[in-house]
C-alpha cells in the first residue's frame, strides 16, 4: 500500500525548492499517479504524524510548494484529461491536477486529447469540439510548466487576467481530498454560504461546517488569503486555498472560444511618465486583453542577456533611448475591429508622448510568439541573474513584490517605488500587469545587508499598499514568503478567523504548513 512512498533523500534536491529559490526539508516523498495513491499518502502521513506539502510544477514564487518537514505529495504525474462536458455552450475539460499549462494549451490548440479515460458522453462532446470553433484556456501565468492544480491552488492569473479575470473564473468544479481522506466534489453554482456560515457537503454524506472570515476583500486583483464574502459560492474558497485546506485531485476547466483576431502591440516610450499616462488613457479601449509593463531596469537586463548570446539572441533590439515598454494584447471579433483598436492605441501613444514609429505589432502567430518570448524572457533573465549571484552567496533569494492597487493609485504607487528603491541603492527591475496596477517590483541585492534593507522596504510597502486599498499579493499567493504581509493586510483578528477555518478542514494542522499564516502556537517543523 505504501510502496510508492520513498525517502526524501532518494529524490532530487529540486523537490525541496520552488521558483522562489527558497529551500525546505522533508523526510518522505510520493509521486502520486492516481486518487488512490493520494489517499494512501494521506493515510501514511496521518499514521506517522507527518506534515504534508502538496506540489504541482513548483513554479510558485512564494515558497508555497516548499516542504515544511514531513511528506512531499507531488502530483505532477497525475496528468491526464478525464472527460469533457458542454455546459451553457461552453466546453469543460476535466483535468487531473498535474496537467501542465503547456500540455493543456497544445492539446486544446491541436485538438488532440488523450481520450483513454473518456466515457461515451465525453467522446461525443470531443467529436463536436473537434470540428467546432477554436477554443482556448484564458489563464496564462507565463510560466507554462505550472500545473492546473497549482494554478487553482493559488488562483493564478497573469497577463490576460486584465480581461478574463483570474483562474477562479475558469474553474467549474473542484474535487478535493481532505486530510482525513474525505472528499468534497463541488460544482460552481451548487454550494453557497449563508451569510458567513457555510457547510460543505462531502461525498460520504458528512459535511465540513465553518464560518468564513469577516474581512472585506479589497476591490483589486487579489490572491491574498482565503476568498471570503457573504453568501459566496463555496468553490471559490477552495480555489486559492494555497494547499492548506485539501488536495485538489480534479478540476473542471472552462474553455472560451478563441477570438478571431489576437494581435499584440508593444509601445516603446522614452520616459516612464509617458508610459504611465499611456496606460491611464488606454484603459478605456475595450478590446485589450492584457496590458503589461517593462521598465528600464528590466530592459537593461534583457540587453545584457542578449549581448551574452544565449537563448535570448533572437530578441528584438530595444534602442538605448527607450526607458519603458507597454505591451497590449488585443482580442477582437475580426481583423477589422483589431485594426481599429490598433490605430487608436497608436493615437493614444502619441498623445501620451510616444511615437507610432516606436511600436512593434504582431498580427500573426509567429510574430506573437516572438513578443511572448520577449515577455517571458524578462522574469527568466532576472531569475538567471539571481542563480548566478547565489553561486557565491547562497543565502540570497529573489526579492519581488506582487502588490496591486486601485486604478487611481497607479501614479502614487509608482512614485513610492521609485523613491524608495533609489534610497536603498539596490539594482531593480519592474515589470508586470500594469493594466491592473499590479507591478512586480524585483530587487537584486548583492549582499545580505542589502537584502535586509529591501525586506524592510517591502514591509513598509505592504502597509502603504493596504492603506491605498490594495492587496499584498495579487496573483502569486501568499505562500510562506509573504505570510507576514498577509498579517499586515488583514490584521491579527482576521488571521485568527482564517486559522479557525483551516482547523475545520485540517484539525491536526498538517497540510501546507507555513503557508498563509503560522499555526499560532509553536509550529512543528
Amino acid at each position: 500500500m505504501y510502496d510508492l512512498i520513498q525517502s526524501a533523500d532518494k529524490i532530487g534536491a529540486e523537490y525541496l525548492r520552488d521558483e522562489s529559490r527558497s529551500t525546505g526539508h522533508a523526510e518522505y516523498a510520493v509521486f502520486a499517479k492516481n486518487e488512490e495513491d493520494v489517499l494512501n499518502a494521506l493515510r501514511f502521513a496521518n499514521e506517522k504524524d507527518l506534515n504534508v506539502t502538496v506540489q504541482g510544477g513548483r513554479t510558485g514564487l512564494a515558497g508555497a510548494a516548499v516542504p515544511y518537514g514531513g511528506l512531499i505529495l507531488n502530483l505532477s504525474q497525475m496528468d491526464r484529461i478525464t472527460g469533457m462536458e458542454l455546459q451553457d455552450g461552453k466546453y469543460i475539460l476535466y483535468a487531473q491536477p498535474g496537467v501542465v499549462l503547456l500540455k493543456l494549451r497544445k492539446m486544446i490548440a491541436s485538438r488532440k486529447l488523450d481520450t483513454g479515460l473518456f466515457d461515451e458522453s465525453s467522446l461525443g462532446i470531443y467529436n463536436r469540439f473537434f470540428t467546432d470553433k477554436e477554443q482556448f484556456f484564458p489563464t496564462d501565468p507565463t510560466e507554462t510548466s505550472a500545473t492546473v492544480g497549482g494554478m487553482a491552488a493559488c488562483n493564478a492569473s497573469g497577463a490576460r487576467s486584465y480581461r478574463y479575470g483570474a483562474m477562479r473564473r475558469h474553474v467549474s468544479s473542484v474535487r478535493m481530498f481532505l486530510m482525513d481522506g474525505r472528499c468534497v466534489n463541488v460544482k460552481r453554482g451548487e454550494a453557497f454560504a449563508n451569510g458567513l456560515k457555510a457547510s460543505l457537503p462531502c461525498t460520504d454524506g458528512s459535511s465540513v461546517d465553518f464560518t468564513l472570515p469577516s474581512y472585506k476583500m479589497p476591490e483589486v486583483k487579489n490572491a491574498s488569503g482565503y476568498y471570503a464574502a457573504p453568501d459566496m459560492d463555496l468553490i471559490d474558497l477552495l480555489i486559492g486555498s494555497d494547499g492548506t485546506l485539501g488536495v485538489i485531485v480534479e478540476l473542471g476547466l472552462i474553455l472560451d472560444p478563441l477570438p478571431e483576431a489576437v494581435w499584440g502591440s508593444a509601445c516603446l516610450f522614452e520616459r516612464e511618465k509617458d508610459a504611465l499616462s499611456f496606460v491611464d488613457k488606454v484603459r478605456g479601449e475595450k478590446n485589450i486583453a492584457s496590458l503589461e509593463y517593462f521598465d528600464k531596469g528590466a530592459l537593461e537586463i534583457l540587453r545584457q542577456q542578449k549581448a551574452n548570446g544565449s537563448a535570448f539572441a533572437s530578441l528584438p533590439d530595444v534602442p538605448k533611448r527607450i526607458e519603458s515598454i507597454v505591451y497590449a494584447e488585443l482580442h477582437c471579433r475580426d481583423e477589422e475591429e483589431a485594426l481599429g483598436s490598433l490605430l487608436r492605441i497608436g493615437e493614444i501613444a502619441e498623445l501620451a508622448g510616444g511615437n507610432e514609429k516606436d511600436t512593434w505589432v504582431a498580427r500573426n502567430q509567429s510574430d506573437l510568439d516572438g513578443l511572448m518570448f520577449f515577455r517571458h524572457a524578462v522574469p527568466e533573465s532576472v531569475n538567471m541573474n539571481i542563480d548566478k549571484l547565489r553561486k557565491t552567496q547562497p543565502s540570497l533569494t529573489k526579492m519581488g513584490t506582487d502588490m496591486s492597487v486601485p486604478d487611481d493609485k497607479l501614479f502614487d504607487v509608482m512614485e513610492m517605488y521609485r523613491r524608495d528603491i533609489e534610497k536603498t541603492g539596490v539594482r531593480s527591475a519592474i515589470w508586470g500587469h500594469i493594466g491592473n496596477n499590479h507591478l512586480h517590483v524585483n530587487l537584486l541585492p548583492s549582499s545580505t545587508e542589502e537584502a535586509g534593507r529591501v525586506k524592510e522596504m517591502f514591509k513598509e510597502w505592504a502597509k502603504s499598499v493596504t492603506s491605498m486599498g490594495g492587496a499584498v499579493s495579487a496573483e502569486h499567493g501568499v505562500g510562506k514568503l509573504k505570510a507576514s504581509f498577509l498579517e499586515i493586510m488583514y490584521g491579527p483578528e482576521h488571521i485568527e478567523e482564517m486559522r479557525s477555518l483551516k482547523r475545520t478542514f485540517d484539525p491536526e494542522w498538517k497540510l501546507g504548513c507555513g503557508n498563509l499564516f503560522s499555526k499560532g502556537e509553536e509550529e512543528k517543523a
Partner: protein
Amino acid sequence: MNIIVCVKQVPSSNEVRLDPVRKTIIRDSSKAVANPFDVTAVEAAVQIREKHGGTVTALSMGIPATEKLLRDEIARGADKAVLLTDRVFAGADTLATSYTLAKAVNTLGGADLILCGKMATDGDTAQIGPELSAWLDVPCVTDVIEIKETDDRHIVCVRNTDAGTETVKVELPAVITVVKNLTIPRLPSIAGIRKSLDAEVRLVKAAELGADPSRIGLDGSPTQVIRTFPQEKKGEAVKIEADKAAAAVMELWEEL
C-alpha cells in the same frame, strides 16, 4: 539599388489536422502567412536599402487574398508591392512559377538584386530562386547566411555548403536565396501599418506580362503530384532522471 523580393503565401503551421470522422484534411485558409524565409528576405532587402538607398518591391504570385500579406511586407519596410494574380496562373509548379516571376521582373523593368527565401515551408523545394536566375540569365547564390557587403555592382555573401561555408562575390544583377535566420526580421510598427493601408498593391494579370500561355499555370507545369499525405510522427521521447541517466541509457541501448 532596385531590389525585388519574392514572397509566397503558405499555411501558418506545418501541422495537418485530420477530421476524425471524415478523415479529410481540415484547411483553415484564414491562417495563411508569408513564408518565414521570405520575411527574412524582405528584412535583408530593407537593411540594404537603408544603407544604399533605392526601393524594395515585394513580388508575389498568388490568389487575390495574398494582397493582405503584401501589405504586411510594406508595413515591415518594403516600398511597393506587386501581386501576379490571374486564374490562368493556377496549378503552377516551380517551373511555371519561376517563369511567371521572371516575366514579372522584366515587366517591372528589371532589378539590381532579387532576393528569395531559401525555400517555402509548404513545398520545401528550394527551386524557385535558382530557376528564376536561369530564366533571367543572371548568377544565383543559394543558402545565404550572411550578406557582408554590397555596392552598385557587386554583392558579397556567405553561403552554407555541405562542407562548411563559402564567401562569394557576384556581379549584379543576381538572385540570392536566404536562410531563415540570416537576420531577425523587425516587427511592423503602427506607423508602418498606417502607411501600408494607403499603399498601392499593383495587381498584374497574365496578359500584361506577355507570357507564353503554354508556360504558365497548369499547362506550363510538367510536375505531377500523385498523392499527398501528412507525415506520421513516430516514436516518443523518453524522460530520464539525471541520477539514473547512465543505467537508463544502457537500457535504451539494449532495446535498440
